[in-house]
């Protein structure tokens, strides 16, 4: 029978290329955003974060861009390497109060495959 499940967006790149992974968020009360990398068989691993009072933040080979007007987040990976192959999740943190205070909500993820 036909398999049913999440159809994650996929991105295939060649080693050395730059990668851009996009994420749309819905909660305008979120003021802190995180990108996680999840390798097969492991838990999500923190990559980079950004607060809502910033629109860009750079790390080592990674850059996160935040556009609050359209509620869009992107992760740029420079000189992508085979070891970057994983599922990448964006997450947003809600500080609007009540029981949602500090709650971290994840997007569905993007599969990145890097070909040597």
């Amino acid at each position: 029978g036909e398999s049913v499940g999440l159809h994650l967006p996929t991105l295939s790149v060649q080693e050395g290329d730059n990668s851009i992974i996009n994420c749309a968020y819905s909660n305008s009360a979120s003021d802190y955003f995180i990108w996680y990398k999840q390798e097969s068989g492991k838990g999500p691993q923190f990559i980079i974060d950004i607060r809502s009072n910033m629109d860009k933040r750079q790390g080592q080979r990674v850059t996160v861009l935040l556009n609050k007007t359209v509620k869009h987040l992107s992760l740029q990976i420079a000189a992508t390497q085979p070891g970057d192959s994983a599922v990448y999740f964006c997450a947003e943190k809600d500080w609007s109060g009540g029981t949602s205070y500090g709650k971290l909500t994840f997007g569905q993820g993007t599969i990145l495959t890097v070909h040597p």
Partner: protein
Amino acid sequence: DARVTQTPRHKVTEMGQEVTMRCQPILGHNTVFWYRQTMMQGLELLAYFRNRAPLDDSGMPKDRFSAEMPDATLATLKIQPSEPRDSAVYFCASGPMSSGNTIYFGEGSWLTVV
């Protein structure tokens, strides 16, 4: 190297059995999360604690799931009775309760209910 520790890493159990998953958050972190990951639903938040008090467990099936923090160094997630549809990876995560602070994940408990 501080990290979130989860046990068991892998569990195969028969339908109807009780399953208990344990988590030791990073020392000093006062928020603890339980997530479930499946191919069908992705990462779903089951329960969320702040200073050991449950803040939000709306994502958790109440009839069979329960989550507690007996003390600051231990969080538990119980399923009783377990069903095949509970087969998933269960992640615990912890973080400090401050704006702009990330949360850190354990390696997960891989549960198979047959």
